[in-house]
C-alpha cells in the first residue's frame, strides 16, 4: 500500500510527461490526488505494512503530516484545473505537461518525507521536495520568478547541506552507541546511550538546515520571494506542505535529543528561533504592500509558532502539531484565493486591490474568512493551537515567552487585517485594472472557488470539534515527539 502511495504519483508524472495530450494532464493530477487521499484515508483504518526494514512506514506523526499534505494536495489539484485553464502559460501544451508532471513529482517527494523513518532517507526526501518544486516557481518565466527560484534553490541547498552534516554527526553518535544505522527505531532505542554533546551538535546543524527550509527566521529570507513569485497552487503546496515537511525533520530528532539528555538545550534553541520568526513576521506584515508576501510572512509566523510549541513542550507540543495541520489548510486556502484575486486585479499590490467582495463575491468572502482563520480567531483550529502554546508557556513558567508570543500574534493580526479588510471591503476602483484585455473570462468558476471553500469548511469543523480518531492521533503524535513525556 505504501509503495503504491509513492509510486502512483511518480508513474502518473512520467505518463503526463510523455503522453502529449494536454487535455488529460489536469484530470490525471486530480485522479492521483483523489487516489492519494483515499489511500491516506485507508491508513486511518488499517496501518500499512512498513517497507525497507521499517525505514519507510507510518507512525502517528507521519500519519498527521501525510494527511495534511494529502488533503491540501487534493484541493490544489482540483484548483489547478481552473488555474491552468485561465493561465496564459497553461495554454502551452509543453508547459502544462511540465507543470502537472512536476506537481505530481512534488507530491511523491512530500509523501516520501512524511513516511520516512530513517534520517538519511528523510534528508534525501526533503532535498527532493526542493528540487521538484524549484522549476514550478519559475513557471511564469518572469525575471522575478527566476530570481526567487535561484535564491530558493541555493539557500535551501546550502541549508539542507548543513542538515546532512547534522545527520552525519547523528550517525557518528549512533555508531558509537549501538553500531546500528540511522533508522528511527534503532536510534530511539540507542538514544539514552548516545553521547549527549554530539547529539546536541547534530541537532544544531539539523535545526539550522531544516529550519532554513521551514522558513524559520533568520534563515527565512528565500521564503517571501519564492512564495510570492510562484504560481498560486504551487505557493499553496510550498507553504502548506513543504514547510511542514521540513518541520518534520526537526520533529523527528527532538525525542532523540531529549533521550540523550539535551532536551533543555534543544528546546531553548527552538523557543529562540520560534520567537525570532514570530517577531520577524510581526515586523514585516505591518505595512506590507504585496499580499502574497504578506501570506508568506504569515507562514513565517506560523512556523515560528510551531517551533515555539515544540520548544515549550508539554501541552504546547499538541498545539504545535495542530498548528502545523491548521497552517497547511489555511495557507493553502489563502494562497489559492490569492490566485483568484491576482487574476482578477492583475496586481499583487495591496493598495491596488479594492472591493474584492463586490467584484468577486465568492473569492472576496473567502479572503475575509481566511483572514480570521489564519490569524487564529475562533472557530479556527489555530485558535485552539495558539491557546495550547500559550498555556504551555504559562504552565512551564515562561511568562516572558508568553508575553512575546501574545505581542507577536497581535501585531501580525493588525498587519494582516489592515491589508485584508480594505482589499475585501473597500470601494472598487472605477478604473479597471490594467492589462486584462486578453479576452479571458476572469469570473470565479467552481474549480477556483470550491477547493478553497472546502478547506475553509474543514478548518471550521476542526476548530469546533476534533473527531475522536483525529484527537487520538494528535495525542499519540505528541507523545512520540515528547518521547512519552507529554
Amino acid at each position, binding site marked *: 500500500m505504501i509503495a503504491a502511495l509513492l509510486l502512483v504519483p511518480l508513474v502518473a508524472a512520467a505518463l503526463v510527461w510523455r503522453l502529449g495530450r494536454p487535455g488529460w494532464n489536469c484530470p490525471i493530477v486530480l485522479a492521483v490526488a483523489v487516489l492519494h487521499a483515499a489511500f491516506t484515508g485507508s491508513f486511518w483504518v488499517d496501518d500499512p505494512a512498513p517497507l525497507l526494514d521499517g525505514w519507510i512506514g507510518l507512525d502517528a506523526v507521519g500519519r498527521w503530516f501525510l494527511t495534511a499534505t494529502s488533503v491540501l494536495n487534493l484541493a490544489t489539484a482540483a484548483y489547478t484545473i481552473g488555474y491552468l485553464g485561465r493561465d496564459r502559460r497553461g495554454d502551452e501544451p509543453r508547459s502544462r505537461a511540465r507543470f502537472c508532471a512536476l506537481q505530481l513529482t512534488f507530491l511523491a517527494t512530500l509523501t516520501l518525507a512524511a513516511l520516512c523513518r530513517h534520517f538519511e*532517507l528523510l534528508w534525501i526526501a526533503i*532535498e527532493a521536495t*526542493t528540487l521538484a518544486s524549484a522549476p514550478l516557481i519559475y513557471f511564469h518565466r518572469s525575471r522575478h520568478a527566476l530570481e526567487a527560484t*535561484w535564491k530558493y534553490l*541555493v539557500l535551501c541547498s546550502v541549508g539542507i547541506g548543513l542538515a*546532512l552534516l547534522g545527520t*552525519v554527526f547523528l*550517525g557518528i553518535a549512533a555508531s558509537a552507541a549501538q553500531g546500528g*544505522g540511522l533508522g528511527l527505531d534503532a536510534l530511539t532505542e540507542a538514544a539514552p546511550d548516545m553521547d549527549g554533546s554530539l547529539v546536541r551538535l547534530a541537532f544544531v546543524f539539523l535545526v539550522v538546515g531544516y529550519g532554513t527550509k521551514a522558513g524559520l527566521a533568520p534563515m527565512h529570507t528565500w521564503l517571501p520571494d519564492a512564495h510570492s513569485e510562484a504560481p498560486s497552487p504551487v505557493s499553496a503546496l510550498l507553504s502548506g506542505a513543504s514547510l511542514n515537511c521540513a518541520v518534520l525533520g526537526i520533529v523527528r530528532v527532538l525525542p532523540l535529543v531529549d533521550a540523550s539528555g539535551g532536551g533543555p538545550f534543544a528546546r531553548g534553541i527552538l523557543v529562540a528561533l520560534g520567537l525570532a520568526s514570530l517577531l520577524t513576521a510581526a515586523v514585516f506584515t505591518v505595512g506590507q504592500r504585496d499580499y502574497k508576501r504578506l501570506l508568506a510572512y504569515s507562514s513565517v509566523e506560523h512556523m515560528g509558532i510551531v517551533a515555539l510549541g515544540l520548544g515549550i513542550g508539554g501541552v504546547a507540543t499538541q498545539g504545535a502539531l495542530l498548528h502545523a495541520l491548521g497552517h497547511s489548510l489555511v495557507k493553502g486556502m489563502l494562497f489559492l484565493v490569492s490566485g483568484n484575486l491576482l487574476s482578477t486585479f492583475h496586481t499583487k499590490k495591496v493598495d491596488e486591490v479594492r472591493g474584492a467582495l463586490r467584484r468577486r463575491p465568492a473569492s472576496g468572502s473567502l479572503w475575509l474568512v481566511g483572514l480570521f482563520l489564519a490569524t487564529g480567531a475562533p472557530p479556527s483550529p489555530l485558535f485552539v493551537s495558539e491557546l495550547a502554546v500559550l498555556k504551555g508557556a504559562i504552565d512551564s513558567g515562561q511568562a516572558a515567552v508568553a508575553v512575546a508570543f501574545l505581542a507577536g500574534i497581535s501585531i501580525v493580526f493588525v498587519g494582516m487585517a489592515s491589508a485584508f479588510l480594505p482589499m475585501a471591503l473597500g470601494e472598487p476602483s472605477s478604473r479597471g485594472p490594467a492589462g486584462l484585455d486578453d479576452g479571458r473570462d476572469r469570473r470565479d468558476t467552481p474549480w477556483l472557488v470550491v477547493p478553497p471553500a472546502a478547506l475553509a469548511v474543514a478548518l471550521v469543523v476542526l476548530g469546533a470539534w476534533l473527531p475522536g480518531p483525529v484527537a487520538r492521533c494528535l495525542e499519540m503524535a505528541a507523545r512520540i515527539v515528547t518521547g512519552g513525556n507529554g
Partner: protein
Amino acid sequence: MVLQVLLALLVLSNIWLYFSSRLRIHIRLVAFQGFLLAALPLIAVGHFPDERRIGLAALTLLVKTFLLPALMTRAVLRSGVLDEPSVSRKHIQMSLAAVLLLGLSVWLASHLPAPLPAPADRILATAFFTLLTGLYLCVSRSRIPSQALGVILMENGVVAASLSRSQEMPVLVELGVLLDVAVAVFVMVVLIRHVDAEFRSVDVERLSELRD
C-alpha cells in the same frame, strides 16, 4: 598512506579554489574532487571493497567527475563569462580566508565533543574545510555559476564527513544523495542558462530586485 595523500589533495584542491579567478579551472578542480570522493570510500574502509562499493565509486566518478562538470562547463561557455572578478587582485584577502577556514576546520575536528580516533579526525577536518570552502564560495563570489560550485563543494564536504563514521552509509542512501546532487546541479545549470538569457549577465548582484 594513500588515504593521507588523497586527503592532502582534497585540501590542496580547495586552497586552489580560493586563488583562481577562472571559472573553468574551478570546474576542473570540482571534477578532480569528484575523483577523490569516488576513491576515498574504497581506501577508507580498510579492506577490499565489495562489488557494490566499487559500483558506487564508479557511478560517483561518472557523475561528479564527468557528467556534472560537463554540464557546468557548457553553461559557463554558453554565457561567455569565464572569469571571477571577486578574486582578482585580492590575494591577501583570499589567503586570509583560506588560512582562517582551514584553521577553523582543524580546530573543529579536534574539538568535537567526543574526539574521533585517527584517521577519522583528519577525514573530518578535510571535510569541514571542503564544506566551509563551499559556503565561502556561495557567499563571496560574484558569478552565479560559482554559487552552484559552492553548493557542490558543500555536498562534497558532507559526503567526506560521512566517511569518518565507523559505519558505512547504506548503498541505497548513497545512491539517493548522489541522485539529489545530480538533479540539483542539473536544475541549477538550466537556471543559469535562463538567468543568462533573461539578464544578459550571470552576476549575482543582478538577482537582487525582490525585497520588502
